[in-house]
């Protein structure tokens, strides 16, 4: 019994084995790991992502970026508890293919002893909340240094409900994509493609920062970015290994392949830089790491170490060239390259999950699936996310623009958002 309870989820590669559903029993070890994972994923956003992003902007805007990450964390958390969780993971009845229900709004029916699989549902709520937080926070990179704080807040909340929640439900809430057996272990579609596309659309709708690309806008503090990068790497273990929702072999393998993806991504990106620009840079290395992590994310519960090596390598190269292309050829001011790294990486990884689940020590496919079929399902998931996230994000931005206006004035942008929007300055050294 014990063994089955522990290994079934592992073999199937997703959280709740049928068995556990029948006879829900709390597993304290799984709970311990999920409590830890939730802390790790929140750590990715605060202070991880905040520092990673904050270091990349100019001094006069550093607080505005930290504030955006922080405010999104606070506001999304409340929205999640009040309604979003229920819409994502509640029972949607007949429409469940598309959206969950309101039965769990305000955490109704969730008590101290309510279980979800082998862990308390409160922990599952927390864990999933941290994903709902970091996704809109990633989008910040697309409109950094020029968006109004009020507009950013309104947009992020709307986006959570209209973009994140549905896609999350489709893939993890027993929605239509999950029914098609899509393989997205920790959020290639839900988190990375989603955030990447939204950031690209935001960059296009808001337009370039004043002076882009002529004026140099070098990162104001790469040591801060590096500190954030380290935290992202560590926190990502909770993100991916936590997505096993149990403390067993699946979590272990997920952690290992995640780490391999990060390392390979960093190495390959640095290698590309070394060849192309003669010198490897710190920013390049950490960006390659994020690319590797974003790419391995959807595959992390399905592939083996060798698959991870290949995925990480592809990620480093693909995201490197995507960044060059968007920045230098298309001249789109996706300020912190969210699309090139997370969008491209997330799509690549979702595709690779379909392939490498079947080879090089992958866990294999669900009954009746073949690599061919699986790849089609993966493409469906990628396509659906691209279309929904791209289209709806565009619409939301237009609405918010009509209501509040998206962008600060030219003078304000020149003076810097920190003093203009928050009456503060980052440094008084």
């Amino acid at each position, binding site marked *: 019994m014990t063994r089955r309870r522990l290994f079934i989820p592992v073999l199937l590669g997703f959280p709740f084995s049928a068995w556990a559903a029948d006879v829900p029993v709390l597993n304290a070890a799984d709970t311990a790991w999920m409590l830890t994972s939730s802390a790790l994923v929140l750590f990715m956003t605060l202070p991880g992502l905040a520092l990673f992003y904050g270091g990349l902007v100019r001094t006069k805007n550093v607080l505005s970026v930290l504030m955006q990450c922080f405010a999104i964390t606070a506001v999304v958390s409340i929205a999640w508890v009040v309604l979003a969780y229920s819409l994502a993971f509640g029972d949607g009845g007949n429409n469940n293919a598309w959206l969950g229900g309101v039965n769990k709004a305000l955490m109704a029916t969730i008590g101290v002893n309510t279980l979800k699989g082998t862990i308390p549902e409160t922990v599952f709520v927390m864990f999933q909340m941290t994903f709902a937080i970091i996704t809109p926070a990633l989008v910040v990179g697309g409109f950094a240094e020029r968006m109004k704080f009020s507009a950013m807040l309104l947009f992020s909340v709307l986006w959570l409900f209209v973009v994140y929640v549905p896609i999350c439900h489709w893939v993890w809430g027993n929605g239509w994509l999950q029914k098609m057996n899509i393989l997205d272990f920790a959020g290639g579609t839900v988190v990375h493609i989603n955030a990447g596309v939204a950031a690209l659309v935001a960059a296009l709708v808001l337009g370039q920062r004043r002076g882009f690309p002529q004026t*140099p806008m070098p990162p104001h503090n790469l040591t801060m970015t590096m500190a954030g990068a380290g935290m992202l790497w560590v926190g990502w273990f909770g993100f991916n290994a936590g997505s096993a929702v149990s403390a067993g072999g699946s979590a272990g393998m997920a952690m290992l392949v995640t780490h391999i993806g990060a390392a390979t991504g960093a190495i390959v990106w640095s290698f590309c830089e070394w060849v192309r620009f003669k010198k490897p*840079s710190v*920013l*390049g290395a950490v960006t390659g790491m994020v690319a590797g992590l974003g790419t391995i994310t959807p595959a992390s519960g399905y592939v083996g170490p060798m698959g991870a090596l290949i995925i990480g390598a592809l990620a480093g190269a693909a995201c490197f060239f995507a960044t060059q292309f968007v920045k230098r050829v298309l001249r789109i001011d996706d300020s912190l390259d969210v699309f090139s790294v997370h969008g491209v990486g997330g799509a690549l990884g979702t595709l690779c999950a379909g392939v490498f689940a079947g080879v090089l020590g992958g866990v294999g496919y669900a009954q009746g699936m073949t690599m061919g079929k699986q790849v089609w399902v993966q493409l469906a998931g990628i396509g659906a996310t691209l279309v929904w996230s791209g289209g709806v994000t565009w619409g939301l931005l237009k609405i918010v623009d009509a209501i509040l206006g998206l962008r600060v004035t030219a003078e304000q942008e020149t003076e810097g958002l920190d003093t203009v929007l928050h009456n503060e300055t980052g440094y008084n050294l």
Partner: protein
Amino acid sequence: MRLVIAVIKPYKLEDVRAALSEIGVQGMTVTEVKGFGRQKGHTELYRGAEYVVDFLPKVKIEIAVEAAQVERVIETITRAAHTGKIGDGKIFVCPLEHVVRVRTGETGKDAL
């Protein structure tokens, strides 16, 4: 009196200060500046975005001295700051009409 303004390479500051102390210069005021001139700057690359940094870090030293001392001061700085490489810097000399020491109210050469 004169105000001698020297712009030199940062890592030469210590040598220059020492050399000036030796010839009895009691005080000086130092400012970190960015220099633009014949010496070329370096390039920075961030995710492929390339920036040429024309301005190089330099150090500006301001020294108030008696007219008589100017020659020696210039000569001393030139020697101590010299590397022979482009970018060694410049020395400027402006007239100085009046000096006051805040602490004592002393003026002129006594204030130096």
